[in-house]
């Protein structure tokens, strides 16, 4: 749904950002989210230095251990240190979710502006494509692609990017449509500015705001998807640690050692909850109008 357009975005960005950050800090939910996300990013970045052991080193003699001083979160069915694998798993989750949402956002931005600003027939065709892709249940599409290409990180990112583009493109398209006849765009066109100049210099700064918020709210969804597909052994391939394939390892040894499932689920829950809280906080702080529009 096209919402009213905020023309103040370009006017005073620094002031707005500071105000928004202050609002975010006052909001308990958003602040909790920000702290969880910051912790998650720190762990992911510092993985090589803070992981107590090599996440791939086997020690079958000490398999499925409980909590101990040597292994704070126990060991898995091959005796690998669970805590170290969780820390490296954070890196995997962060890398995949950020690169996939970033890429999808960028492509969605371009396609959305083309659909919204280009000729009507192209718009109709693109909207049909967007609607077709988004009418597929995400997992069904993912499974269809993985059948053909085989599992792996590259396939995972390809799938996530493909299914995410339509949502972003439609958002940008709606924003672009409401802007295309705004006075300053018409003025620019009358003065003979090229389409590229209009889109990049004038349209882009005005339509990109809501996209950033939606992207931040989609990161937890992508983290879930990565973990889910890795759980089905269709995402990150073992022995590379991912929270999803660790959950699967825990599932298979659930009766001998429930600790592995519980420990592997916890960071996943904290990360998705953290990103969701942060996204909610950001949305309320940056753009209170979306609060009504998105519901």
């Amino acid at each position, binding site marked *: 749904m096209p919402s009213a357009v905020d023309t103040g975005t370009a006017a005073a960005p620094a002031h707005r950002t500071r105000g928004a950050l202050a609002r975010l800090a006052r909001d308990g939910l958003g602040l909790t989210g920000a702290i969880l996300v910051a912790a998650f990013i720190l762990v992911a970045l510092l993985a090589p230095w803070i992981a107590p052991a090599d996440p791939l080193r086997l020690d079958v003699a000490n398999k499925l251990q409980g909590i101990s001083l040597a292994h704070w979160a126990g060991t898995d069915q091959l005796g690998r240190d669970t805590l170290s694998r969780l820390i490296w798993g954070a890196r995997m989750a962060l890398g995949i979710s950020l690169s996939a949402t970033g890429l999808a956002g960028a492509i969605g931005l371009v396609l959305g502006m083309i659909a919204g600003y280009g000729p009507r027939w192209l718009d109709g065709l693109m909207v049909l494509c967007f609607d077709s892709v988004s*009418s597929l249940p995400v997992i*069904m*599409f993912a499974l*269809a692609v993985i059948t*053909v290409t085989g599992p792996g990180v590259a396939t995972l990112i390809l799938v996530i990017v493909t299914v995410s583009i339509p949502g972003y493109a439609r958002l940008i398209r709606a924003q672009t449509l409401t802007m295309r006849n705004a006075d300053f765009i018409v003025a620019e066109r009358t003065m003979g500015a090229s389409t590229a100049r209009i889109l990049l210099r004038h349209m882009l700064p005005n339509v990109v705001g809501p996209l950033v918020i939606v992207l931040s709210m989609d990161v937890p969804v992508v983290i*879930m998807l990565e*973990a*889910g597909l890795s*759980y089905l052994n269709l995402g990150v391939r073992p022995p590379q640690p991912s929270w999803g394939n660790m959950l699967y390892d825990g599932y298979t040894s659930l009766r001998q050692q429930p600790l592995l499932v519980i420990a592997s689920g916890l960071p996943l829950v904290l990360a*998705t909850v953290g990103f969701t809280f942060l996204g909610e906080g950001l949305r309320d702080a940056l753009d209170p109008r979306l609060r009504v529009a998105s519901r």
Partner: protein
Amino acid sequence: MLTYAIKRVGLAIVILFTVMFAMYALVFLVPGDPASLALGPRATPALKAELIARMGLDRPVPVQVWNFFASALHGNLGYDVWSRRPVAAQILEVFPNTLFLGAMALGWAAALGVALGCLAVVWRGTLIDRLLGILSVSMIAVPPFVIALYALAVFAVWLGWLPAIGAGTPGDPVSQFRAVLLPAFAIGITWVGYLARLVRASMLEVMGANHIRTARAFGLSEARIVGRYALRVAIIPTIAVLAVGFGSILSSAVFVETVFSRPGIGMLIVSAVAKRNYPVVMGTVLFMTAFYLLVVTAADLLIARLDPRVRDAFRG
């Protein structure tokens, strides 16, 4: 209304055809031929030739596409590479299980979600409203398959109260009900959060309407106003979300069925993907997409019937 219905159904059919075409194109886009893809490392030239002949892969591509479309429209979704059983029969065999799971999940989620949303409106602006808000967001944020695993660990393995695997004995409603409880709990929890938020938001919009003010002027109690007069209007957006929600419930079912080894569409497709049994994968995806489009279109038509503003919006 009729124009709207025709347009809406037409759009659904066009989308379904686009999806069918894309599904089929997918197989030809990747390097290597479909036969060796399906047979994997076990492919011998003889086996391959036999499969190619059986699946009609030796015919020209346009003929193949035509055959695929024609047989799909007749309800023939192709044959399992290994067991040679019709894909459609396999789907229909397990689909009731998935449908039952989805209905149970959506059922308890809708009941609790709408109730929580109403409570938040009755106590709007208070601490209870705030806590319910945080609870809803948390429910949305937690991945359903982690809940499934934790529920499995606690209620099936540790406490042993409920079965850990399967869908219950066929023909025994009690065992089927016991088997569906944990999976339905895991899938539904996200939707409790969504619906509570949605009902609260659309209810708050309705609370400012004239008929609510009139009801209040007549001195009706707040609970009665919320439950009887506001909910009736506020429930309309919920129907739309429930329909879309069915798609996401089917997606969660893929994981949750795998966790509980519960026969269903999810288990069928996951094991087919692992074996690269692509006729089963394509057939199941197509079936689920068609089903999903059917649900969403039906919901849109229902909403248009309930709310004339939607019909007008579609025109513009």
